């Protein structure tokens, strides 16, 4: 088993493709053919459609010459922190206006155009957690599984 700290990224199909590419590269680095389990963290800021992502990822993996056993998704809540005054707050994208949610879905950095620190009004804040998708864990399987 090994852990990788992967940064956040894209959405659904484009995202699934980059996850599949990533797995492929990790496997070839380790000289393996199969993954027993992968844990994918989904930051809720990006409002990823889990079903589409899962479908896309499985479809793409079918066309590759490696196998993946279990795929697990974990939601991660969004925490923002103001760099100016240190205030930390949470936002819940499901409560946002549809158009804004969609914009943030495509490019989470759009959050800087729609949010300010509720305490001091600064837009210089940090997305501490929950931006997008990252791979938390990959557990390698047997080559002849």
């Amino acid at each position, binding site marked *: 088993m090994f852990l990788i700290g992967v940064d956040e990224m894209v959405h659904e199909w484009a995202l699934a493709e980059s996850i599949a590419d*990533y797995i492929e590269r990790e496997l070839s680095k380790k000289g393996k053919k199969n993954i027993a389990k992968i844990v994918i963290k989904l930051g809720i800021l990006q409002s990823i459609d889990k079903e589409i992502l899962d479908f896309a990822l499985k479809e793409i993996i079918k066309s590759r010459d490696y196998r993946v056993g279990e795929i697990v998704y974990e939601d991660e809540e969004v925490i923002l922190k103001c760099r100016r005054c240190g205030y930390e707050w949470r936002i819940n994208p499901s409560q946002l206006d549809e158009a804004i949610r969609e*914009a943030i879905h*495509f490019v989470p950095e*759009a959050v*800087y*155009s729609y949010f300010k620190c509720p305490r001091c009004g600064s837009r*210089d804040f940090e997305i501490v957690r929950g931006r997008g998708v990252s791979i938390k864990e990959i557990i390698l399987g047997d080559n002849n599984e």
Partner: protein
Amino acid sequence: MSDPRLLVIPKRLAGVKKIYPIMSSKGGVGKTIISTLLALTSSSLGCKTGLLDLDFTNPSTHIVLGVNPWEQEIIEEKGIIPQLVHGIKYLSITIFTRENPTPMRGEAVVNAFRELLAITQWGELDSLFIDTPPGISDEHLELLTYLGDKLEVVIVATPSPLAIKSVERLAEILLEGNYKIAGLVENMSDKPKLQKLAENLRIDYLGNIPYVKDIDEKIGNIELLRKTPIWEKVLEIVNRLLGNK
């Protein structure tokens, strides 16, 4: 390279033959207007053309084009399809940020860059022109580092004595890194004055664009822009750039 997005970005641009970032060491020299007109004139020659606005904190190509990108529906097709504006494939971050101020630190700029390029399906293009912020910032470094082999940088400068040193510095950084420079465009200049500079740097001199007093009244209206000497000059430049001479 632990970022999965970096693996798909080259694939998204696989159908694009040439990528021309428009760069300058100084601000306000005309990159935005020139990159937009380069795209429009290239398209008018029948080439499949794209325009990407990479100036995240001050996106403004849509103002030259006279459109509000956020009013168009986003078309999703395993990623997003650029908008079609006056015959060119167009992408600006304003589809997502509208006219809101969007101050971003380096890390956020890098994320926005990778996200946008990883989800955008450009398809087949002869040329993709990219408007960029002044100087060398994270947007440029991302471009150079991850798309370096397809890039040909167009440098824009005005003939001010203050510009010379900074053009030299920019060219030096690019040449040291073995990046291709498509050439130098001299803007707001009635006579060519930077030919010698280009010659010394061993880069192509692409031409001079005259100062046009009332250009600001024509920004946003393609039909009016088409009748200006700026358009005419950019058309000559694009012909040279695309090898039609």
